[in-house]
């Protein structure tokens, strides 16, 4: 008896907790609201199964509890019932899977013409790189990384000259403009995640991964590393400021380009000279 009530309590308690829980996802700040919707669909489908199973169990435990001399029903299987259950389950699974796959298709297919920028992860900080006026990011190599070239950009690549480098963990993005984030790591696995954006992806050294989203809400959000990356993992934080285009442009203009950083490093103008020569060579 107590056991049946306990099972009932656990079942009902779970559902009640679901509805009264103060812990729920953060208000969304990107275009990925559909993912939240799929979660809700999944909750409904699976919730019904959970409640049905638990209630059925509680009933059985109550109704068919042990009585001396009583004999259980001998009825090893019922094809009809099992086929019905298989079909129903398959339908339920399809209801969850279809929107899931659709959402994934959206997630991995970046719309044509989406602006790109790069996030660079390393133990245990974030840096960012935007393409300059040419809209193209220059090629890089981890081997080129040193104190003067923390991004490991190729000085010979003309596309990289006007890249805007942000050696700071604060990132700004303009509102309502879709962006493709190229993710690069120079040492170990990291993961770029802003809970309000719902989109995350690992950064794999020796490869470049990506995700895309469209910011739809102004605000300042936490950037967290979501893939264990060593002792300082929990401390690898950044912040994302989503703001109106004007404010963003103002911030963006104040940042320096790769060419400028290189020039700053060599006041003799040696490298600058070399760059100019390179650029001239490639400009035709």
């Amino acid at each position, binding site marked *: 008896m107590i056991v049946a009530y306990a099972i009932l309590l656990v079942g009902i308690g779970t559902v009640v907790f679901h509805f009264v829980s103060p812990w729920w996802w953060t208000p969304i700040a990107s275009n990925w609201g559909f993912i939240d919707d799929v979660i809700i669909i*999944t909750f409904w489908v699976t919730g019904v199964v959970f409640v049905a199973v638990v209630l059925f169990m509680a009933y059985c435990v109550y109704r068919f509890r042990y009585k001396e001399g009583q004999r*259980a029903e001998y009825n090893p299987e019922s094809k009809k019932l099992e086929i019905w259950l298989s079909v129903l389950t398959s339908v339920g699974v399809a209801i969850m*899977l279809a929107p899931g796959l659709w959402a994934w298709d959206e997630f991995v297919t970046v719309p044509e013409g989406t602006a790109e920028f790069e996030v660079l992860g390393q133990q245990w900080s974030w840096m960012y790189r935007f393409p300059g006026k040419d809209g193209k990011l220059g090629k890089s190599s981890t081997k080129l990384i040193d104190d003067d070239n923390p991004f490991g950009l190729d000085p010979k690549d003309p596309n990289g000259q006007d890249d805007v480098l942000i050696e700071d963990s604060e990132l700004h993005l303009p509102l309502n403009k879709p962006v493709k984030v190229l993710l690069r790591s120079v040492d170990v696995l990291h993961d770029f995640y802003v809970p309000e954006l719902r989109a995350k992806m*690992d950064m794999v*050294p020796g490869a470049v991964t990506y995700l895309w989203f469209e910011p739809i809400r102004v605000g300042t959000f936490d950037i967290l590393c979501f893939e*264990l990356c060593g*002792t300082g*993992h929990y401390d690898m934080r950044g912040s994302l400021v989503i703001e109106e285009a004007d404010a963003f442009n103002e911030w963006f203009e104040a940042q320096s380009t790769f060419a400028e950083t290189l020039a700053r490093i060599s006041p003799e103008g040696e490298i600058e000279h070399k760059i100019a020569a390179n650029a001239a060579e490639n400009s035709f």
Partner: protein
Amino acid sequence: MAIVDSPVVQDIPAAEVPDPNEDLYHAKSWVTKYLFCQDAKVIAIQYSCTALGIGLLGLVLSWVMRLQLGFPEVFSFIEPAHYYQFITMHGMIMVIYLLTALFLGGFGNYLIPLMLGARDMVFPYVNMLSYWVYLLAVLVLIASFFVPGGPTGAGWTLYPPQAILSGTPGSDGGIILMLVSLSLFIVGFTMGGLNYVVTVLQARTRGMTLMRMPLTIWGIFTATVHALLAFPALFVGAIMMTLDRLLETSFFMPVISEMGEILSYEGGSPLLFQHLFWFFGHPEVYIVALPAFGIVSDLLSVHARRHVFGYRMMVWAIVIIGALSFIVWAHHMYVSGMNPWFGFFFATTTLIIAVPTALKVYNWTLTLWRANIRLTLPMLFGLAFIITFVNGGITGLFLGNVAIDVPLSDTLFVVAHFHMVMGIAPILVVFGAIYHWYPLMTGRMLDEGLGKFHFWVTFLGSYIIYLPMHYLGFIGVPRRYFEMGETTFIPESAQDLNAFMTIVTLIVGFAQLVFLYNLITSRKNGVEAGPNPWKATSLEWQTAKTPPEHGNFGKTLPVVYRWAYAYGLPNAAQDFVPQNLPPELVATHVGNQVPDTDGES
């Protein structure tokens, strides 16, 4: 030709192999009888004790971690590096050294020969070696706590490059010992696993067809096949990572700039390790789950006094789940940066697995329908398993469905999910199984009062730890964080919840100590069980002596006439008919055991 015998077919085929174990070698000295013993039952107990011992260490580690999470900045002795070492060792110990070893090495060794009517495993010597290599693996694992730099803190997934670089605690000796220990475990396990598989396939008694085997054996058998085919991937990964660490080969290591210094690695693929790891890692989930599925089916059936509903479906479900689990591995890697189209493939295969799994759940509950349910301890644990497993399985549908996994992966939702589904649920079955078979192993019952206390605290406690944890995951609280510090998105109340979970963890942990106490004291003080105290039908309860001796059965092996679930047979004299009761006695025989099992009495 029918694939399955109908459940109660009474005829038995003629013998093809006359008692293949007739020349079983009996040990003569104390050392070979109890220490270097070749008897599967003794090996089982050695395995179980070692697994429970190392599991206790895993439990203690979880307390320390919870203290840090519940009360950050209170316990100054827990540093970030320690925290990461604790989570790594906790995960590895629980998954591999406790659950895998206990289900297969422990229950597998004990039950396979007994339930199949065999005298022992087919190669007792190799079986014995299996245990000693396992013990060596455990010792190497423990040794890693004492090397400079301590054990590895790379997370139980051991992802390179992080696992072998200096930014991770234990990257000196710890990671090497971890990899060596895993390799040893695999070698040792393979020795045992070959025994389990061949015994099931080749050493059954007369009349014991595959479709008459108890589901326990089906679960353990399929899981062992899994282990034999999945562990190789981990083995290869471990060898390659050891080479990367010691010889600076570049299998998993691309060019790396570590803290401003360019390392000598070049061109390797970190994702390769993840694929190898999860090609092992996903079947590993089923290595733990399938024996639990099988055992719980038997617990429910015996104590509900009713046959398992839809036995054939249950068997096929185990086999199909087993086969599919080799092509779902990358659902652990949706956000790993792998080839994006893999997402479609793996999400589909993963959700297909939900169908046979759900059918198993239905059949467990349908077993209770019109049954005669005895609320014994094994039954309670069985019921609790269903609830926790359904809950954990359902959250698996969130994580398996590729797009939903994107926001949820690497949050506490994942932690809650896998603890529910492959931590708590299988452990509940382990407890149920111990309460169920302890009388067979020792001849005495475990104390019922202590058992009830243990059950309620463990079940309800762990449920209220992990249920709310999912919701922290929805907020976006990451796993593997030493402390959250300042954030803009986590409410204050989340910390209160964390503190609450920590307190409950400690209470649940205490209950496990009560269980251990029960386990030890009942050995001497428990009520005498007598033969077949649960009135079960399967062969392990039909031995001449309880506990069974070396050779398991008497002079002749039992002959099986029916499936293991002949409960409530309408025309039988009592509500259960042992598998080896000759058909002509079904209507008249009363008693816990079949007489004349050994032709002696």
